[in-house]
Protein backbone atom coordinates (compact mmCIF):
# COMPACT_ATOMS: atom_id res chain seq x y z
CA UNK A 1 0.00 0.00 0.00
CA UNK A 2 1.34 3.40 -0.94
CA UNK A 3 1.08 5.66 2.10
CA UNK A 4 3.05 8.53 0.65
CA UNK A 5 1.09 11.73 1.10
CA UNK A 6 1.70 15.44 1.51
CA UNK A 7 2.32 17.09 4.85
CA UNK A 8 -1.01 18.94 4.89
CA UNK A 9 -3.07 15.77 4.42
CA UNK A 10 -1.02 13.75 6.90
CA UNK A 11 -1.46 16.38 9.60
CA UNK A 12 -5.17 16.82 8.77
CA UNK A 13 -5.61 13.20 9.90
CA UNK A 14 -4.67 14.20 13.48
CA UNK A 15 -7.82 15.28 15.36
CA UNK A 16 -7.96 17.97 18.04
CA UNK A 17 -7.32 16.50 21.47
CA UNK A 18 -5.03 13.73 20.20
CA UNK A 19 -2.60 12.10 22.60
CA UNK A 20 0.42 12.78 20.40
CA UNK A 21 3.92 11.32 20.71
CA UNK A 22 6.82 13.37 19.33
CA UNK A 23 10.06 11.74 18.23
CA UNK A 24 13.61 12.94 18.81
CA UNK A 25 15.17 14.54 21.88
CA UNK A 26 15.37 18.29 22.69
CA UNK A 27 16.80 19.93 19.53
CA UNK A 28 17.83 16.63 18.00
CA UNK A 29 15.66 15.23 15.20
CA UNK A 30 12.45 16.82 16.48
CA UNK A 31 9.73 16.42 13.80
CA UNK A 32 9.59 20.16 13.17
CA UNK A 33 8.00 20.14 9.70
CA UNK A 34 5.04 18.24 11.18
CA UNK A 35 5.01 20.42 14.29
CA UNK A 36 4.89 23.62 12.22
CA UNK A 37 2.04 22.18 10.12
CA UNK A 38 0.12 21.28 13.30
CA UNK A 39 0.47 24.92 14.31
CA UNK A 40 -0.57 26.19 10.85
CA UNK A 41 -3.68 24.02 11.02
CA UNK A 42 -4.41 25.49 14.47
CA UNK A 43 -4.99 22.20 16.23
CA UNK A 44 -6.44 22.37 19.72
CA UNK A 45 -6.12 20.36 22.89
CA UNK A 46 -3.16 18.22 21.85
CA UNK A 47 -1.76 16.13 24.67
CA UNK A 48 1.96 15.85 23.96
CA UNK A 49 4.20 12.99 25.03
CA UNK A 50 8.00 13.10 24.89
CA UNK A 51 10.89 12.22 27.22
CA UNK A 52 12.69 15.54 26.60
CA UNK A 53 10.98 18.22 24.51
CA UNK A 54 12.30 21.53 23.26
CA UNK A 55 11.34 23.82 20.39
CA UNK A 56 8.57 21.41 19.28
CA UNK A 57 6.73 21.68 22.59
CA UNK A 58 7.43 25.41 22.88
CA UNK A 59 6.14 26.22 19.39
CA UNK A 60 2.93 24.21 19.86
CA UNK A 61 2.32 25.94 23.21
CA UNK A 62 2.87 29.34 21.57
CA UNK A 63 0.38 28.41 18.83
CA UNK A 64 -2.27 27.46 21.40
CA UNK A 65 -2.41 23.83 20.24
CA UNK A 66 -1.63 22.16 23.56
CA UNK A 67 -3.71 20.96 26.52
CA UNK A 68 -1.02 18.99 28.36
CA UNK A 69 2.59 17.90 28.15
CA UNK A 70 3.84 14.62 29.61
CA UNK A 71 7.63 14.93 29.69
CA UNK A 72 10.65 14.60 31.91
CA UNK A 73 12.26 17.79 30.66
CA UNK A 74 11.17 20.71 28.50
CA UNK A 75 13.90 23.16 27.47
CA UNK A 76 16.15 24.12 24.57
CA UNK A 77 19.14 23.01 26.65
CA UNK A 78 21.72 25.57 27.67
CA UNK A 79 22.51 27.63 24.55
CA UNK A 80 18.94 28.68 23.71
CA UNK A 81 17.72 28.43 27.29
CA UNK A 82 14.16 27.89 28.53
CA UNK A 83 10.93 27.19 26.65
CA UNK A 84 9.25 30.48 27.52
CA UNK A 85 5.95 29.79 25.75
CA UNK A 86 5.56 26.42 27.46
CA UNK A 87 6.50 27.98 30.74
CA UNK A 88 4.07 30.90 30.42
CA UNK A 89 1.24 28.61 29.31
CA UNK A 90 1.75 26.36 32.32
CA UNK A 91 1.99 29.35 34.66
CA UNK A 92 -1.20 30.80 33.16
CA UNK A 93 -2.96 27.47 33.63
CA UNK A 94 -3.73 26.95 29.94
CA UNK A 95 -1.35 23.98 29.59
CA UNK A 96 -1.08 21.20 32.17
CA UNK A 97 2.48 20.11 32.88
CA UNK A 98 2.59 16.42 33.72
CA UNK A 99 6.14 16.12 34.94
CA UNK A 100 7.74 12.73 34.65
CA UNK A 101 11.23 11.48 35.11
CA UNK A 102 12.34 10.73 31.53
CA UNK A 103 12.41 7.08 32.60
CA UNK A 104 8.78 7.11 33.66
CA UNK A 105 7.78 8.29 30.17
CA UNK A 106 9.81 5.34 28.86
CA UNK A 107 8.14 3.04 31.41
CA UNK A 108 4.67 4.34 30.50
CA UNK A 109 5.41 3.72 26.81
CA UNK A 110 6.78 0.27 27.63
CA UNK A 111 3.54 -0.57 29.48
CA UNK A 112 1.56 0.50 26.42
CA UNK A 113 3.78 -1.49 24.07
CA UNK A 114 3.51 -4.56 26.35
CA UNK A 115 -0.26 -4.18 26.47
CA UNK A 116 -0.38 -3.79 30.25
CA UNK A 117 -1.97 -0.94 32.24
CA UNK A 118 1.06 0.18 34.26
CA UNK A 119 4.74 -0.41 34.81
CA UNK A 120 6.44 -0.71 38.19
CA UNK A 121 9.63 1.32 38.49
CA UNK A 122 12.38 1.55 41.01
CA UNK A 123 13.25 5.15 41.72
CA UNK A 124 10.83 7.91 42.79
CA UNK A 125 11.36 6.66 46.37
CA UNK A 126 11.42 10.18 47.74
CA UNK A 127 9.76 12.57 45.32
CA UNK A 128 6.83 14.94 45.55
CA UNK A 129 6.05 13.96 41.96
CA UNK A 130 4.32 10.80 43.20
CA UNK A 131 1.73 12.58 45.36
CA UNK A 132 1.31 15.46 42.91
CA UNK A 133 0.38 13.36 39.88
CA UNK A 134 -2.40 10.82 39.41
CA UNK A 135 -0.37 8.76 36.95
CA UNK A 136 1.96 7.60 39.73
CA UNK A 137 0.89 5.28 42.57
CA UNK A 138 2.52 2.97 45.06
CA UNK A 139 2.28 -0.70 44.13
CA UNK A 140 3.21 -3.80 46.14
CA UNK A 141 5.29 -6.60 44.69
CA UNK A 142 2.77 -9.51 44.86
CA UNK A 143 5.60 -11.93 45.66
CA UNK A 144 7.59 -10.14 48.35
CA UNK A 145 5.37 -7.25 49.36
CA UNK A 146 8.08 -4.69 48.55
CA UNK A 147 6.62 -1.32 47.67
CA UNK A 148 7.50 0.17 44.31
CA UNK A 149 6.00 3.00 42.32
CA UNK A 150 3.82 2.35 39.32
CA UNK A 151 3.40 4.60 36.34
CA UNK A 152 0.28 4.44 34.23
CA UNK A 153 0.60 3.33 30.61
CA UNK A 154 0.70 6.02 27.93
CA UNK A 155 -0.54 4.86 24.54
CA UNK A 156 -0.29 7.74 22.07
CA UNK A 157 -3.04 7.75 19.46
CA UNK A 158 -0.51 9.01 16.95
CA UNK A 159 3.22 9.59 17.03
CA UNK A 160 5.11 11.76 14.59
CA UNK A 161 8.66 10.62 13.94
CA UNK A 162 11.21 12.17 11.61
CA UNK A 163 13.37 9.52 9.94
CA UNK A 164 16.27 9.60 7.52
CA UNK A 165 14.84 7.08 5.08
CA UNK A 166 11.41 5.69 4.36
CA UNK A 167 9.78 3.82 1.54
CA UNK A 168 6.27 4.51 0.27
CA UNK A 169 4.78 1.71 2.33
CA UNK A 170 6.03 3.22 5.59
CA UNK A 171 9.17 1.23 6.39
CA UNK A 172 11.39 3.81 8.07
CA UNK A 173 15.02 3.94 9.13
CA UNK A 174 16.68 6.30 11.60
CA UNK A 175 20.42 6.87 11.29
CA UNK A 176 22.47 7.77 14.32
CA UNK A 177 20.84 8.12 17.75
CA UNK A 178 17.34 6.69 17.78
CA UNK A 179 16.47 8.15 21.21
CA UNK A 180 13.15 6.64 22.32
CA UNK A 181 11.57 6.54 18.87
CA UNK A 182 11.50 2.79 18.31
CA UNK A 183 9.69 2.30 21.62
CA UNK A 184 7.43 5.24 20.80
CA UNK A 185 6.43 3.57 17.53
CA UNK A 186 5.54 0.32 19.32
CA UNK A 187 3.58 2.10 22.04
CA UNK A 188 1.49 4.19 19.65
CA UNK A 189 -1.70 3.24 17.84
CA UNK A 190 -0.22 4.57 14.64
CA UNK A 191 2.79 6.50 13.37
CA UNK A 192 3.19 9.31 10.85
CA UNK A 193 6.69 9.26 9.39
CA UNK A 194 8.32 12.30 7.84
CA UNK A 195 11.54 11.43 6.03
CA UNK A 196 14.61 13.13 4.62
CA UNK A 197 14.61 10.74 1.69
CA UNK A 198 12.12 8.36 0.09
CA UNK A 199 13.75 5.15 -1.05
CA UNK A 200 12.55 2.61 -3.60
CA UNK A 201 10.41 -0.44 -2.89
CA UNK A 202 13.34 -2.83 -2.83
CA UNK A 203 15.71 -0.65 -0.81
CA UNK A 204 15.35 -2.50 2.48
CA UNK A 205 14.71 -5.99 1.08
CA UNK A 206 17.71 -5.82 -1.24
CA UNK A 207 20.21 -4.32 1.20
CA UNK A 208 21.69 -4.91 4.62
CA UNK A 209 20.04 -1.89 6.18
CA UNK A 210 16.64 -2.81 7.61
CA UNK A 211 13.93 -0.42 8.65
CA UNK A 212 13.58 0.34 12.37
CA UNK A 213 9.87 1.00 12.07
CA UNK A 214 7.98 -1.56 9.94
CA UNK A 215 5.34 -0.49 7.47
CA UNK A 216 2.38 -2.04 9.31
CA UNK A 217 2.80 0.39 12.21
CA UNK A 218 2.74 3.43 9.95
CA UNK A 219 -0.32 5.18 8.53
CA UNK A 220 1.31 7.95 6.48
CA UNK A 221 4.68 8.80 4.97
CA UNK A 222 5.65 12.34 4.06
CA UNK A 223 8.68 13.35 2.01
CA UNK A 224 10.11 16.14 4.16
CA UNK A 225 13.71 17.07 3.36
CA UNK A 226 15.10 19.16 6.24
CA UNK A 227 12.00 17.99 8.13
CA UNK A 228 13.69 18.40 11.50
CA UNK A 229 14.93 21.95 10.78
CA UNK A 230 15.58 24.29 12.45
CA UNK A 231 16.45 21.44 14.81
CA UNK A 232 19.31 19.09 13.97
CA UNK A 233 19.24 15.77 12.11
CA UNK A 234 22.14 13.37 12.73
CA UNK A 235 24.68 12.98 9.89
CA UNK A 236 22.63 15.41 7.82
CA UNK A 237 22.46 18.93 9.27
CA UNK A 238 22.93 20.81 12.52
CA UNK A 239 20.61 23.38 14.08
CA UNK A 240 19.76 26.45 12.01
CA UNK A 241 20.72 29.11 14.50
CA UNK A 242 19.08 32.08 12.74
CA UNK A 243 15.71 30.31 12.56
CA UNK A 244 15.75 29.34 16.22
CA UNK A 245 16.73 32.87 17.21
CA UNK A 246 14.09 34.45 14.98
CA UNK A 247 11.48 32.15 16.54
CA UNK A 248 12.64 33.03 20.06
CA UNK A 249 12.32 36.72 19.19
CA UNK A 250 8.66 36.43 18.11
CA UNK A 251 6.22 38.36 20.23
CA UNK A 252 2.60 37.93 19.14
CA UNK A 253 0.44 35.17 17.64
CA UNK A 254 0.40 37.20 14.41
CA UNK A 255 4.23 37.18 14.33
CA UNK A 256 4.13 33.41 14.71
CA UNK A 257 1.64 33.05 11.82
CA UNK A 258 3.93 35.07 9.57
CA UNK A 259 6.98 33.09 10.69
CA UNK A 260 5.15 29.81 10.00
CA UNK A 261 3.85 30.90 6.59
CA UNK A 262 7.36 31.86 5.48
CA UNK A 263 8.44 28.29 6.23
CA UNK A 264 5.59 26.42 4.56
Amino acid at each position, binding site marked *: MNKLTDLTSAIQSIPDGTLLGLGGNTLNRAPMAAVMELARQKKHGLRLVK*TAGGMDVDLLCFAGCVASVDAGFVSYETE*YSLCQHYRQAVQAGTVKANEHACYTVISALRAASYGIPFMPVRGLQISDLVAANDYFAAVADPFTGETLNAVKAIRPQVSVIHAHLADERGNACIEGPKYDDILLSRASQTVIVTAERIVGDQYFSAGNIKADIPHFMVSAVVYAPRGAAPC*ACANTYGVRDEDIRSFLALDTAGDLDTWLQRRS
Partner: protein
Amino acid sequence: MIRPCDIMTVSLARLIRDGETVFHGVSSHMPLIAVLLAKATHAPNAVHLNIPGGVDPYKPRLQSFTSAGDDLWQTAEAAFPLQDVFDLSMRGGLDVAFLSGVQFDSRGGVNASVIGDYRKPKIRLPGGAGSAVLIPTAKRAIIWRTKHDKRTFTQKLDFVTARGNVSEIVTPLCIFTMFGGELILKSVHQTSSIEEVADNTAFPIRYLSLATTPPPTEEELRTLQVIDPQDYRNLEFH
Protein backbone atom coordinates in the same frame (compact mmCIF):
# COMPACT_ATOMS: atom_id res chain seq x y z
CA MET B 1 42.64 34.21 37.65
CA ILE B 2 41.02 30.78 37.74
CA ARG B 3 37.67 30.78 35.97
CA PRO B 4 34.68 29.25 37.83
CA CYS B 5 33.88 26.99 34.86
CA ASP B 6 37.38 25.52 34.90
CA ILE B 7 37.50 24.87 38.63
CA MET B 8 33.99 23.36 38.50
CA THR B 9 34.73 21.12 35.51
CA VAL B 10 37.99 19.93 37.01
CA SER B 11 36.29 19.30 40.37
CA LEU B 12 33.55 17.24 38.71
CA ALA B 13 36.15 15.26 36.76
CA ARG B 14 38.13 14.42 39.90
CA LEU B 15 35.05 12.90 41.51
CA ILE B 16 34.98 10.22 38.80
CA ARG B 17 36.96 7.11 39.71
CA ASP B 18 38.67 4.87 37.21
CA GLY B 19 36.40 2.12 35.89
CA GLU B 20 33.13 3.69 36.98
CA THR B 21 30.02 3.87 34.82
CA VAL B 22 29.13 7.54 34.47
CA PHE B 23 26.06 9.19 32.93
CA HIS B 24 25.14 12.76 32.06
CA GLY B 25 22.03 14.03 30.28
CA VAL B 26 20.77 17.12 28.46
CA SER B 27 21.87 20.70 29.30
CA SER B 28 25.05 19.12 30.66
CA HIS B 29 28.07 20.43 28.79
CA MET B 30 30.07 20.87 31.98
CA PRO B 31 29.71 17.27 33.20
CA LEU B 32 30.12 16.00 29.62
CA ILE B 33 33.49 17.76 29.41
CA ALA B 34 34.33 16.59 32.94
CA VAL B 35 33.81 12.95 31.89
CA LEU B 36 36.06 13.45 28.85
CA LEU B 37 38.67 15.12 31.08
CA ALA B 38 38.55 12.30 33.64
CA LYS B 39 38.98 9.71 30.88
CA ALA B 40 41.91 11.67 29.42
CA THR B 41 43.64 11.93 32.79
CA HIS B 42 43.13 9.81 35.93
CA ALA B 43 40.18 7.61 34.90
CA PRO B 44 40.84 6.19 31.42
CA ASN B 45 38.58 3.21 32.11
CA ALA B 46 35.57 5.20 33.23
CA VAL B 47 32.60 4.32 31.02
CA HIS B 48 30.96 7.34 29.43
CA LEU B 49 27.18 6.89 29.04
CA ASN B 50 24.83 9.49 27.57
CA ILE B 51 21.38 10.06 26.07
CA PRO B 52 22.12 9.37 22.38
CA GLY B 53 23.58 6.10 23.56
CA GLY B 54 27.16 6.27 22.29
CA VAL B 55 29.37 4.40 24.78
CA ASP B 56 32.80 6.02 25.22
CA PRO B 57 32.76 8.50 22.34
CA TYR B 58 36.37 9.06 21.26
CA LYS B 59 37.45 12.68 20.91
CA PRO B 60 33.95 13.89 19.98
CA ARG B 61 33.62 17.23 18.22
CA LEU B 62 31.28 18.82 20.72
CA GLN B 63 28.23 20.84 19.66
CA SER B 64 27.09 24.03 21.37
CA PHE B 65 23.33 23.41 21.29
CA THR B 66 23.18 19.99 22.91
CA SER B 67 24.91 17.55 25.23
CA ALA B 68 22.74 14.76 23.84
CA GLY B 69 23.55 14.92 20.14
CA ASP B 70 25.07 12.78 17.43
CA ASP B 71 28.58 14.00 18.29
CA LEU B 72 28.47 11.52 21.17
CA TRP B 73 27.38 8.74 18.81
CA GLN B 74 29.63 9.04 15.74
CA THR B 75 32.87 7.96 17.43
CA ALA B 76 31.37 5.68 20.09
CA GLU B 77 32.18 2.00 20.24
CA ALA B 78 28.84 0.57 21.34
CA ALA B 79 25.19 1.54 21.44
CA PHE B 80 23.62 1.81 24.90
CA PRO B 81 20.74 4.27 24.65
CA LEU B 82 19.00 6.17 27.40
CA GLN B 83 16.52 3.40 28.18
CA ASP B 84 19.43 1.02 28.81
CA VAL B 85 21.23 3.56 31.01
CA PHE B 86 18.14 3.98 33.19
CA ASP B 87 17.67 0.21 33.41
CA LEU B 88 21.32 -0.12 34.44
CA SER B 89 20.78 2.35 37.26
CA MET B 90 17.57 0.61 38.40
CA ARG B 91 19.44 -2.69 38.82
CA GLY B 92 22.24 -1.02 40.75
CA GLY B 93 24.87 -0.81 38.01
CA LEU B 94 25.27 2.93 37.53
CA ASP B 95 28.07 4.42 39.62
CA VAL B 96 27.70 8.12 38.89
CA ALA B 97 24.88 10.27 37.54
CA PHE B 98 25.47 14.00 36.96
CA LEU B 99 22.37 16.09 37.63
CA SER B 100 21.39 19.64 38.42
CA GLY B 101 18.45 21.63 39.76
CA VAL B 102 17.52 25.11 40.94
CA GLN B 103 16.98 24.63 44.68
CA PHE B 104 18.84 22.49 47.18
CA ASP B 105 18.28 22.06 50.91
CA SER B 106 20.64 21.07 53.72
CA ARG B 107 19.58 17.43 53.46
CA GLY B 108 20.53 17.09 49.79
CA GLY B 109 17.02 17.49 48.40
CA VAL B 110 16.74 18.74 44.83
CA ASN B 111 14.05 20.85 43.16
CA ALA B 112 14.07 21.07 39.38
CA SER B 113 10.30 21.24 38.93
CA VAL B 114 8.57 24.44 40.04
CA ILE B 115 8.84 27.61 42.10
CA GLY B 116 5.54 27.98 43.91
CA ASP B 117 2.68 25.51 43.74
CA TYR B 118 3.08 22.47 41.47
CA ARG B 119 -0.31 22.96 39.80
CA LYS B 120 -0.23 26.77 39.73
CA PRO B 121 3.47 27.49 39.60
CA LYS B 122 4.97 30.92 39.82
CA ILE B 123 7.76 29.55 37.66
CA ARG B 124 7.57 26.34 35.69
CA LEU B 125 11.08 24.92 35.45
CA PRO B 126 12.26 22.49 32.74
CA GLY B 127 11.76 19.49 35.04
CA GLY B 128 14.10 17.05 36.72
CA ALA B 129 14.77 14.90 33.61
CA GLY B 130 16.24 11.72 35.09
CA SER B 131 16.62 13.07 38.65
CA ALA B 132 13.62 11.45 40.32
CA VAL B 133 14.74 7.96 39.36
CA LEU B 134 18.52 8.40 39.14
CA ILE B 135 19.19 10.30 42.38
CA PRO B 136 17.79 7.41 44.47
CA THR B 137 19.21 4.56 42.35
CA ALA B 138 22.65 5.64 41.09
CA LYS B 139 25.38 4.88 43.62
CA ARG B 140 26.42 8.53 43.61
CA ALA B 141 24.46 11.45 42.24
CA ILE B 142 26.85 14.35 41.69
CA ILE B 143 25.17 17.74 41.37
CA TRP B 144 26.59 20.82 39.69
CA ARG B 145 25.00 24.24 39.81
CA THR B 146 26.51 27.42 38.42
CA LYS B 147 24.47 29.67 40.71
CA HIS B 148 25.26 29.88 44.41
CA ASP B 149 22.94 32.16 46.34
CA LYS B 150 20.38 31.95 49.16
CA ARG B 151 17.51 31.23 46.77
CA THR B 152 19.43 28.28 45.37
CA PHE B 153 20.76 26.88 48.65
CA THR B 154 17.60 27.30 50.62
CA GLN B 155 16.05 26.33 53.95
CA LYS B 156 12.97 24.86 52.35
CA LEU B 157 12.39 23.53 48.86
CA ASP B 158 9.26 24.63 47.02
CA PHE B 159 9.01 21.09 45.67
CA VAL B 160 11.07 17.93 46.19
CA THR B 161 11.84 16.52 42.75
CA ALA B 162 14.15 13.96 44.34
CA ARG B 163 16.12 12.92 47.37
CA GLY B 164 18.53 10.05 47.53
CA ASN B 165 22.17 9.36 46.94
CA VAL B 166 23.50 12.87 46.41
CA SER B 167 27.21 12.66 47.17
CA GLU B 168 28.55 16.09 46.22
CA ILE B 169 27.30 19.45 45.02
CA VAL B 170 29.82 21.53 43.08
CA THR B 171 29.20 25.29 42.80
CA PRO B 172 31.28 28.29 41.67
CA LEU B 173 32.20 28.87 45.32
CA CYS B 174 32.70 25.45 46.90
CA ILE B 175 32.05 21.73 47.04
CA PHE B 176 29.45 20.36 49.44
CA THR B 177 29.34 16.71 50.40
CA MET B 178 26.76 14.62 52.24
CA PHE B 179 27.69 13.52 55.76
CA GLY B 180 25.22 11.81 58.08
CA GLY B 181 22.30 12.88 55.92
CA GLU B 182 23.42 16.49 55.93
CA LEU B 183 25.11 18.70 53.38
CA ILE B 184 28.44 19.86 54.77
CA LEU B 185 31.25 21.87 53.27
CA LYS B 186 33.96 19.71 51.73
CA SER B 187 36.17 22.43 50.31
CA VAL B 188 36.09 26.09 49.35
CA HIS B 189 37.58 27.18 46.03
CA GLN B 190 40.62 29.43 46.40
CA THR B 191 38.71 32.08 44.48
CA SER B 192 36.12 32.23 47.30
CA SER B 193 36.01 32.13 51.08
CA ILE B 194 33.98 30.50 53.81
CA GLU B 195 32.40 33.89 54.53
CA GLU B 196 31.26 34.20 50.94
CA VAL B 197 29.82 30.66 51.01
CA ALA B 198 28.01 31.36 54.29
CA ASP B 199 26.66 34.69 53.03
CA ASN B 200 25.19 32.97 49.99
CA THR B 201 23.76 29.89 51.65
CA ALA B 202 20.44 30.01 53.54
CA PHE B 203 21.22 27.08 55.83
CA PRO B 204 24.03 26.98 58.40
CA ILE B 205 27.41 25.96 57.03
CA ARG B 206 29.00 23.04 58.82
CA TYR B 207 32.21 21.19 58.12
CA LEU B 208 34.51 18.59 59.62
CA SER B 209 37.71 20.21 58.43
CA LEU B 210 38.11 23.18 56.18
CA ALA B 211 39.97 22.50 52.95
CA THR B 212 40.74 24.53 49.86
CA THR B 213 39.71 22.93 46.58
CA PRO B 214 42.94 22.00 44.83
CA PRO B 215 43.17 24.36 41.83
CA PRO B 216 43.25 22.97 38.30
CA THR B 217 46.71 21.74 37.33
CA GLU B 218 48.51 22.90 34.20
CA GLU B 219 47.91 19.47 32.69
CA GLU B 220 44.19 19.59 33.43
CA LEU B 221 43.83 23.05 31.89
CA ARG B 222 45.83 22.01 28.84
CA THR B 223 43.72 18.89 28.40
CA LEU B 224 40.51 20.91 28.77
CA GLN B 225 41.67 23.16 25.96
CA VAL B 226 42.12 20.15 23.69
CA ILE B 227 38.81 18.51 24.63
CA ASP B 228 36.77 21.70 24.58
CA PRO B 229 38.48 24.29 22.35
CA GLN B 230 35.17 26.14 21.91
CA ASP B 231 34.88 26.69 25.68
CA TYR B 232 31.42 25.12 26.01
CA ARG B 233 32.21 24.43 29.66
CA ASN B 234 31.60 28.14 30.16
CA LEU B 235 28.17 28.17 28.42
CA GLU B 236 26.21 28.32 31.67
CA PHE B 237 28.07 31.43 32.78
CA HIS B 238 27.09 33.41 29.67
